[in-house]
C-alpha cells in the first residue's frame, strides 16, 4: 500500500517554504504562512543557564476554510507558536524566520510587527484565540451578554443587541442564556461564551491552543464542532493539541511536532491512515483503539535536543522506513516527512 502510493512521486529537497506543502489540484487561499520559524529562549544572564530550542525551522500553511491540527506531546514546543503568532513571546525569546499574515493590504510578518500594530490590528481582530480554559477568561461580576457586547464594541466599533445574539448563535449559545453570570453557566456554556469571544472580531485566523484539555467527551465534541463550523465559514483554523483523537476528528491537514520540529505533515486522512514517521505511528499506536502501546522513553529536554533525528535518539529501532538522520522535512507526494522517507 505504502509503496504504490509513494514510488510514483519524486523526492524533492526544496526549501519547505517554497514547496507548496500540500499540493492538491486547487487549494483555498493561504491566510497565514509560517516560514522556517525558530524560537529560542535564553535562560539566565546571556543564556549562560542554557538555551531552550522551543521551535526549530517550523513551516506551516494555514488556509481559509481548513483546520490544521498541530499535534505532539506536551512540552514539544507547539504552544510557543501561539505566543509567537500573537506577538506575545516573553522578552528573552529570540525568533528567526517569518510568520506572514496574508491580507488585502499585503503581508504582515507577525514576528517583527510592532506591538502597537499587533494589539490594534491583529490580536482579536485578524487572529482570534480560543484559549485552553475559555471559561477562566470570563469576568465573574458581569453577564455573558455584557462581556460579549463590550468585546464586540471594542473590536468592531458597535454592537447592537441583535449583533450579540447572532454572535452567540454562531458559537452555539441560545441568546436567552446570555443574561447569566459566569458562575451560573455550565462548563459547556462557559466554553461557548469563550468561543464567542474568540469570534467577536470576525478573525480570518482562529488559533485554538489545547482547547480540549480536561473537558469531557461531550464538551470536546462541542469544541471540535465549533472549530469545524468556523472553518466552514471560511476561517483558517490552527488547532494545537496533544489530544490526537480530537485532532483526528476535525483536522483537514495535520502537522506532527516532536522536540520543536515538524517531523511529518500532510492531509489528515493520508497521514492518519498511513503514517510514515515512527513518532506519528507511535502516537496513533498509543490511542486506546490503536493498540494502546506507549512510546518508550521521554521526549528530550528542549534545552538539550540531539542533533539529527531526535526521535531515533529515543527509540532507535522503530519499524518503518529507515532513518536518514536528517531533521529537515522534505516534500514527498504532497506530504512532508523528516528523516524517514519511504522508499
Amino acid at each position, binding site marked *: 500500500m505504502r509503496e504504490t502510493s509513494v514510488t510514483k512521486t519524486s523526492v524533492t529537497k526544496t526549501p519547505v517554504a517554497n514547496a507548496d506543502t500540500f499540493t492538491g489540484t486547487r487549494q483555498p487561499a493561504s491566510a497565514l504562512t509560517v516560514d522556517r520559524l525558530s524560537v529560542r529562549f535564553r535562560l539566565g544572564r546571556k543564556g549562560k543557564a542554557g538555551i531552550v530550542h522551543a521551535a526549530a525551522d517550523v513551516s506551516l500553511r494555514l488556509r481559509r476554510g481548513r483546520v490544521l491540527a498541530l499535534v505532539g*506531546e*506536551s*512540552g514539544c514546543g507547539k504552544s510557543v507558536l501561539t505566543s509567537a503568532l500573537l506577538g506575545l513571546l516573553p522578552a528573552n525569546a529570540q525568533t528567526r524566520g517569518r510568520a506572514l499574515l496574508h491580507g488585502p493590504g499585503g503581508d504582515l510578518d507577525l514576528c517583527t510587527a510592532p506591538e502597537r500594530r499587533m494589539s490594534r490590528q491583529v490580536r482579536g481582530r485578524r487572529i482570534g484565540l480560543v484559549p485552553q480554559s475559555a471559561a477562566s477568561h470570563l469576568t465573574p461580576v458581569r453577564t455573558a451578554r455584557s462581556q460579549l457586547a463590550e468585546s464586540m464594541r471594542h473590536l468592531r466599533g458597535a454592537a447592537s443587541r441583535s449583533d450579540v445574539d447572532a454572535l452567540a448563535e454562531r458559537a452555539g449559545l441560545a441568546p436567552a442564556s446570555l443574561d447569566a453570570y459566569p458562575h451560573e453557566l455550565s*462548563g459547556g456554556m462557559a466554553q461557548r461564551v469563550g468561543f464567542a469571544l474568540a469570534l467577536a472580531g470576525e478573525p480570518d485566523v482562529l488559533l485554538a491552543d489545547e482547547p480540549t*484539555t*480536561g*473537558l*469531557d*467527551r*461531550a*464538551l470536546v465534541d462541542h469544541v471540535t464542532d465549533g472549530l469545524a463550523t468556523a472553518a466552514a465559514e471560511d476561517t483558517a483554523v490552527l488547532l494545537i493539541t*496533544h*489530544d*490526537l*483523537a480530537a485532532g483526528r476528528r476535525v483536522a483537514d491537514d495535520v502537522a506532527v511536532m516532536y522536540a520543536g520540529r515538524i517531523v511529518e505533515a500532510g492531509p489528515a486522512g493520508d497521514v492518519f491512515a498511513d503514517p510514515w514517521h515512527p513518532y506519528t505511528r*507511535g*502516537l496513533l499506536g*498509543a*490511542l*486506546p*483503539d490503536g493498540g*494502546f*502501546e*506507549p*512510546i*518508550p*522513553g*521521554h521526549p528530550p529536554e528542549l534545552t538539550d535536543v540531539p542533533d539529527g533525528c531526535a526521535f531515533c535518539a529515543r527509540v532507535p529501532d522503530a519499524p518503518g522506513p529507515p532513518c536518514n538522520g536528517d531533521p529537515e522535512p522534505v516534500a514527498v507526494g504532497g506530504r512532508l516527512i523528516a528523516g524517514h522517507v519511504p522508499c
Partner: protein
Amino acid sequence: MLSAKDLVVGYRRGRPVLDGVDVELHPGATLGLAGPSACGKSTLAAVLALLLEPWSGSVTLDGQPVRGFRHRAPATQRTAIGVVFQQPRLAVEPRWTLDAVVRAPLVASRRRDDGIVAELTEAVGLTRELLARRPHEVSDGQLQRACLARALVLRPRYLICDEMTSMVDASTTALLVRLVRSVAAEGTGVLAVSHDDALLEAWADDVVRWR
C-alpha cells in the same frame, strides 16, 4: 471486596449527588465508570478512597465495615486503598523531589523500601535523573507517573483512578494504564473513572455508564 451499599452523599444539605448507589470492586477486576462532568462519578471515587464520608449507607472493605473517613480512617484500611487524581500538580508537595513524592507513603507508615520504589519507578518510566527533579521541573505527564507510583508503593489491594489520564498525552496514558492493568492482574481491584468511553472500553473489564 471493596463495596458500598445504598450510598447517599453530597456537599450541600438536602442536595445529594449520589442517592442510593451500590457498587462492588472485586480483587483482580477493573470496573470502569463513565459519565460526563458533574455526574457524581468523582464523588463515588472519593467515598471509595475513604476521602469523603457518606451521609448514609455503608462502605465495606474485605468484610470489615469502614470505621472512618479522611483522617479518621484507620491506617490499616486507608493504606489498603491507593488513589490517583486528575491533576497531579494539586496532588503533590511542590518542594519535594519526585523520589520523595513516591516514597512518602512508606515514610508516613514507617515501612521499609524492599525494592518496590525501584520496581515501580522503572515501570512508570521515571529515570534516576527525573526522580531527582521537583514538580516544576517536569511535565504533567511525568508528574502523574510519580503519582501513580506513589499510589502503588504500599501495594494496595484496591486502586481508585479518578480521571487519572485526562491531563496527559496518549503515550503516557497507555503507559499508566498498562501498569494499572498489570497490578490488577496480580489481584488489585480497580475503579477507573473517566469521561472517555473509548479509553474505558480498552481498559476495564466492565464499564458502567452514568448520565
